[in-house]
């Protein structure tokens, strides 16, 4: 199965046996989930903490997931709402799902916080997540991280002209997608 072209429901079904399928599902929706929490809690770190717990809880539920009448995204946001209400009720973010999965805590330093702030509320970044990997890496490196074409080329081990082409194609796709969503 071509994971990049699979529907969300197909990804979740595939995730029972293929870890990369859940990774793709995560990449498609992580910014939307982070934005959902960002509008509801006061700081970007707490929003990220809630996002991490939401995806961990979703991963734990993957073996029980059955496609229903609603989209898989609605299922994910149902989990997000539950994680948020639990956190508000108890006064702190729960980590049960991450503990059950034996995930290491992610600590955020100043640069991480800055990056999270930089990426929040940017529909273009969200749309960029759906680009093919090569284009996505090039567009985000050039226009979010502000790296030069030479730096990106060195990091991605390809020529500058290849990077320029990837950025150009990625931006063209983004323009088209953002234009559709307006």
């Amino acid at each position, binding site marked *: 199965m071509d994971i990049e072209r699979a529907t969300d429901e197909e990804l979740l079904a595939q*995730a029972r*046996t293929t*870890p*990369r399928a*859940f*990774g793709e599902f*995560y*990449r498609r929706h992580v910014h939307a989930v*982070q934005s959902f929490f960002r509008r509801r*809690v006061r*700081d*970007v*770190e*707490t929003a*990220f*903490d809630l996002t*991490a717990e939401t*995806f*961990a809880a979703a*991963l734990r539920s*993957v*073996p029980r997931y059955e496609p229903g009448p609603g989209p898989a995204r609605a299922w994910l946001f149902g989990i997000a709402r539950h994680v948020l209400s639990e*956190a*508000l009720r108890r*006064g*702190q973010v729960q*980590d049960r799902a*991450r*503990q*059950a*999965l*034996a*995930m*290491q*805590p*992610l*600590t*955020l330093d*100043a*640069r*991480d916080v*800055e*990056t999270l*702030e*930089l*990426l*929040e*509320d*940017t*529909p*273009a*970044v969200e749309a960029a997540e759906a680009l093919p990997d090569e284009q996505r890496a090039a567009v985000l490196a050039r*226009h979010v991280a*502000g790296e030069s074409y030479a730096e990106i080329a060195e*990091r991605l081990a390809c020529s500058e002209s290849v990077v320029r082409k990837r950025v150009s194609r990625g*931006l063209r796709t*983004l*323009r088209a997608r*953002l234009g559709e969503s*307006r």
Partner: protein
Amino acid sequence: MPYQTPFERLGEALEAAAERQIAPTPAKARRRGWTLGLFGVVAAFGVGAGAWAATSLLSPGEPVPYAFGPPVAGVAEGAPLPGTVKLLTTTVPDPAGGPPWGMRYWETDRKFACVQVGRVYKGKLGQITRGRVFHELRVGVTDNALAGCYLQDGGGHALAAVQRDAMAGGAPTPCPVAIGSIEIDGRSVRCRAHRTIDFGLLGPNASRYTYRVNRRDRTAGALGDVGGYLVVQKHIKPVMTVVGFRHKDPRLDTRVPSGPAGIALTPVSPVMRQVQYAAGTCRVRPTSAPTGACARQAGYVPIPQPTVGDVRAPLRLRLLEDGRTFRVRFRARQAVIDGRSAYTIEIRRKGGRNSVGREYEHNLPAGGLVKTTIRARDGWHGTYVVTARFRTVRARPGPLATPAWPGLLVGREEITFR
């Protein structure tokens, strides 16, 4: 090792967890201390950037609206004079990248000098909303924007030093201070700011200025022959001091927090360190004086005071049919030719102390008719005294340069509301 964003690290951790979950013997869960609590941690870093992804992705939106219609010659701040409109800079970088910041300057027919600050995209000044929509700032928009018009001094130059909180896209914050929340259209909106913007006009005598950003002092040349300056940085907390008296009895404790003036004639903000004027260097020190810290060196030219003759004239009031709206008319014996003078209509409850005023900010010749319509506010009942005055600005006014009170009496009449 290249930097991975928190999202990338979390994605990898989830994929690893997915692998463990699929494996026949899943890893045993173990208690770990999570560092972030919902209400426990306050970031020690700067507040949100709210930046945008790719500058080439911006799409055009509606221009930033004029709050009261396009500028009109001879009215309020007046219309821009042809040939005076110029972009003083278009290259001030934003701390989070994206389109640079710029500053526009123009002069008006009513002796104001105006500036606008915003993000620059495709050579235009504007504001960015939702990270991807660009709204042009047209010449003359001074509300809903980082902008202002300042009365020119006797030499035809304006001085102003402004510090404002702003959103990352270039719009001013909806709140006067970036603390707490306010209600807009019945909705509670959190008061937050992404940027602190220092901008203004240092005047023609300024050549260079030094400012502090991220604990480093930098020096830049004053912009254009009007001495413009623009400093953009991530939002910084205002330096607050306490004014008033401390007393053990809370009823007598008058202490209140006070920040530096948001606007002064010359710099006062702690971001501005010093200014090089022709008359010498001014080291900027915090002061609450409306003339700022550099009034001595800036070379403000006093505004010539007009010789005002008798302005008294009969005042005519006419109550309209609704019993709440009234018209005021009188002959202006003294001409109004620019923003340095104005007629004011003042309304006060008979025997009361408080009054409200309505500026008549129109140019008009001597002998011209002043006429305006005013509607009584809710709760105005009984007899009110309507007074017309002619006011002029002082020779050395503050940065806002409004005409001085009480001015000269034109006339006074009474009116009764039902």
